[in-house]
């Protein structure tokens, strides 16, 4: 029987992840701080500063120390290095790139950025790769920073869930964002990032103009960042293999760049990584930041960090995972080290999606430890653990945008991939972290859910299955009633009260709310946490044959506890309970649920959840029977450290904490999905960090 996870054990386990008890006591004693004087937070990070400056022997030092080598950290590192600063980047993972590496590569900027201007002129790129015609009219591409700023702070825009995605954005931060989009796009293009034509705008990137392009490399015989080429093997083969270079198979950019263009975040991330290594940035990978050290806990400059060794091992071979490239790496396996920052520290450690205690601040149901953040397998269990935010809080940082998690439809959602704990990421055999996934999962479109019933941890249905994974789109260009706006495209009017009128909201509201039913308490939810528990798609052999699903490895795993088959429903329920680590109770009602469902199918209607009107219904009757997890994922993180327009972290008095910067998902006050927000933050942070005066300690 699988070891079960309960709330008390989970809390202890999470605490142990943040800092080991042995390490904590040792450091506390060395610093003359009694262990009882510190209070362990839920993530295990001490709330009191445990490393007074006078007691520290620094192992490394640099002008700028950056926490996290992802979408904020890499541009910050390059920018600071360009301006003459020495830079050390620490990252808890074995490779660089963070979530950016796995992303679609879409970068939404705007405000009249160089790419908009390139498309307006109908020009291609410097290397001659981009030959596709532009995707938008001149009017759809024409704007300036003032216009972009208004778009990103427009109080009136509502989406189909009656959420206002722009009104709560921090004004100073978004003014700086609008003013730095041009420079950031130019900077990226000067650091081996190749952009396609602009195509639409990314999530919450504004209602009024097209601002988004993805990144690409041209398929060639070899992978050569300088030449802009990628081998077919490194680009990956859909449904078969990915590569260490690109954990997610790269897409076809023929329509938005040219034939042979392969697109996604690997082209962005690896380009920036290549540039950073080339320019002399040093990297301490497998190194988790546990503490930011300030002269005094709530005053003075930040002076450095404490970081612990965090190697990742292949669960099959036991081998330690290694980064794709090694030049610039510092391979130090000391358990705990201290790194001095002479000028500044930049927090680009990502969000909080993998920290159940932190994310439950926004939604108590998300204290359920079964559910992971996107990138769980790619980044490891300590990725997205809120450590950057918590470290900032511990030295007095304020927070911002804490409610904005609830206003974007992919913050937490069902990706619709069965039979895997990590349903968002797409690593296939060929990437070092595939073994962490164990299975690719069975990816289903929402219509394929007509072939299954979906039940909670006690075996009861809770919603119309066809709506369980359905999400209503957010509000971004091009405007349309199906996105919540009264007018379409360029007819959208900024700051118009009619956008937010009750009549318009009534006419456009379309939030299915299904995920909230999935996360609701049920008969198996117990105090004090009332976990909703795992969610299961139940189907039969006939469903597999009808919709032509491949349920063999690597799509499923016979051993990872996320997919089961049995000759009878009763047996299926027993297997789930025995071998799924988060199935804490029997699926008492499953057999009765299937019987009742089959009776509804015979009648042609589902009085409980309205199936039958939207798609055909099929009995679950033909053995063998299958159960596959349908797990939600926490993807975006909104809400984090409050930063100003210079990306300085701001304290509870509204004053910048000297020398401390942050960006991306570690910061709050901006509800823009995707990479643009973090890249601009990184650019601004790198610029300002390099200009800081050198500290004396």
């Amino acid at each position, binding site marked *: 029987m699988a070891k079960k996870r309960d709330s008390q054990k989970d809390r202890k386990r999470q605490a142990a992840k943040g800092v080991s008890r042995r390490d904590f006591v040792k450091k506390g004693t060395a610093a003359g701080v009694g262990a009882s004087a510190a209070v362990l937070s839920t993530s295990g990070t001490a709330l009191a500063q445990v490393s007074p400056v006078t007691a520290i022997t620094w192992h490394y030092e640099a002008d700028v120390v950056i926490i996290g080598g992802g979408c904020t950290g890499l541009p910050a590192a390059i920018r600071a290095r360009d301006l003459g600063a020495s830079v050390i980047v620490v990252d808890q993972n074995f490779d660089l790139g963070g979530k950016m590496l796995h992303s679609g590569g879409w970068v939404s900027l705007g405000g009249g950025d160089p790419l908009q201007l390139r498309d307006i002129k109908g020009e291609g790129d410097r290397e001659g790769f981009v030959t596709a015609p532009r995707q938008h009219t001149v009017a759809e591409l024409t704007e300036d920073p003032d216009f972009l700023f208004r778009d990103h702070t427009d109080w009136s825009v509502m989406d189909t869930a009656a959420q206002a995605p722009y009104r709560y954005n921090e004004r100073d931060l978004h003014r700086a964002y609008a003013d730095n989009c041009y420079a950031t796009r130019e900077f990226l293009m000067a650091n081996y990032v190749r952009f396609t034509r602009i195509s639409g705008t990314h999530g919450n990137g504004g209602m009024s103009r097209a601002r988004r392009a993805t990144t690409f490399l041209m398929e060639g015989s070899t992978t050569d960042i300088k030449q802009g080429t990628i081998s077919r093997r490194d680009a990956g083969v859909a449904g078969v293999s990915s590569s260490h270079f690109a954990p997610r198979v790269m897409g076809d950019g023929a329509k938005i760049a040219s034939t042979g263009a392969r697109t996604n975040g690997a082209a962005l991330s690896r380009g920036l990584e290549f540039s950073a290594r080339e320019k002399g940035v040093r990297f301490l990978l497998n190194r988790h930041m546990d503490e930011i050290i300030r002269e005094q806990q709530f005053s003075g400059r930040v002076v450095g960090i404490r970081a612990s060794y965090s190697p990742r091992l292949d669960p099959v071979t036991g081998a330690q995972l290694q980064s794709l490239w090694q030049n610039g790496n510092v391979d130090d396996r000391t358990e705990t080290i201290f790194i001095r920052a002479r000028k500044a520290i930049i927090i680009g450690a990502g969000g909080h999606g993998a920290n159940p205690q932190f994310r439950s601040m926004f939604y108590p149901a998300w204290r359920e430890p079964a559910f992971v953040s996107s990138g769980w397998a790619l980044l490891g269990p300590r990725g997205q653990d809120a450590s950057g935010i918590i470290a900032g809080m511990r030295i007095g940082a304020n927070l911002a945008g804490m409610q904005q998690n609830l206003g974007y439809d992919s913050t937490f959602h069902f*990706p619709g991939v069965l039979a895997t704990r990590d349903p968002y990421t797409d690593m296939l055999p060929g990437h070092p972290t595939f073994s962490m996934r164990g299975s690719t999962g069975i990816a289903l479109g929402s219509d394929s859910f007509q072939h299954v019933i979906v039940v909670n941890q006690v075996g009861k249905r809770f919603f119309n299955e066809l709506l369980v994974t359905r999400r209503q789109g957010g509000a971004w260009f091009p405007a349309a009633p199906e996105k919540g706006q009264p007018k379409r495209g360029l007819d959208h009017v900024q700051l118009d009260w009619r956008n937010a009128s009750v009549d318009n909201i009534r006419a456009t509201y379309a939030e299915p709310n299904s995920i909230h039913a999935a996360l609701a308490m049920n008969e198996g939810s117990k105090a004090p946490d009332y976990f909703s528990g795992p969610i299961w798609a139940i189907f039969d052999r006939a469903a597999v044959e009808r919709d032509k699903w491949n349920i063999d490895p690597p799509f499923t795993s016979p051993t990872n506890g996320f997919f089961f088959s049995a000759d009878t429903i009763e047996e299926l329920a027993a297997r789930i309970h025995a071998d799924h680590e988060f199935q804490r109770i029997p699926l008492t009602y499953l057999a009765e649920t299937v019987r009742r469902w089959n009776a509804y199918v015979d009648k042609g209607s589902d009085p409980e959840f309205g199936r039958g009107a939207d798609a055909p219904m099929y009995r679950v*009757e033909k053995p063998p029977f299958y159960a596959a997890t349908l797990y939600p994922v926490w993807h975006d993180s909104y809400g984090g450290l409050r930063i100003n327009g210079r990306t300085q972290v701001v304290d509870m008095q509204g004053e910048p904490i000297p020398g401390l910067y942050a960006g991306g998902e570690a910061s709050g006050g901006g509800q823009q999905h995707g990479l643009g927000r973090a890249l601009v933050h990184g650019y601004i942070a790198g610029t300002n960090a390099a200009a800081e005066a050198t500290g004396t300690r």
Partner: protein
Amino acid sequence: MSEHVAEASTPISSTVMPHATSVVAWDIPSAIVAGERFRMKVGIKCSNECRLTNGHFGVYDHEGAQAATGTLPDERWPGTTGLYVAEVELAAPASEGLYTWSVKGLESDSGPHVESSISFGVRVVGNPEYLVRVETVDGVSQTPLGGARVVMHPYQAVADARGVAEVRVAKGAYRLFVSQTRYLTFCLPVEVTADMTARAELDLAPVPERN
């Protein structure tokens, strides 16, 4: 529950717990014309994965009368660990309606097993006098969608290689559904009062964009 006393030099009392069983029933046609015969499959499994060869089961109609009996075969059903399956032929009731029938097994001398049962629906329809011809195509390329599934509850059919499905239905109002893997389900309300032809143009389901 039965008790046996083992014959040995030292008497040992042991209790043989009867094994639980589970019954499954499938391949019941979704619509059966009144009075006609139909076939279905019945499977029984012992919780201890006992060999159930020659085990008996009965099929009972909505009034509890035995409609058929079956005997389990020598071999387990392929792809299962202990399911024994037999096919039975039955006669549908003479009147239209949705009936609840049941299967009970194992019966009589099938060893120390607890009898279990499962109920299932038998949808009996009148004479389906009208032919609905459904042409299924990709909405963009207009190429036929062979294998598309056509459902006009309770009637079902599968499109042939030309993308054509023919469904015989009784007069009435239906939702005509056409489904195909990777396509959005097509739905059209239809009133059938004569033979008719419908054309279903299906759109590919959008691939969710992710960043």
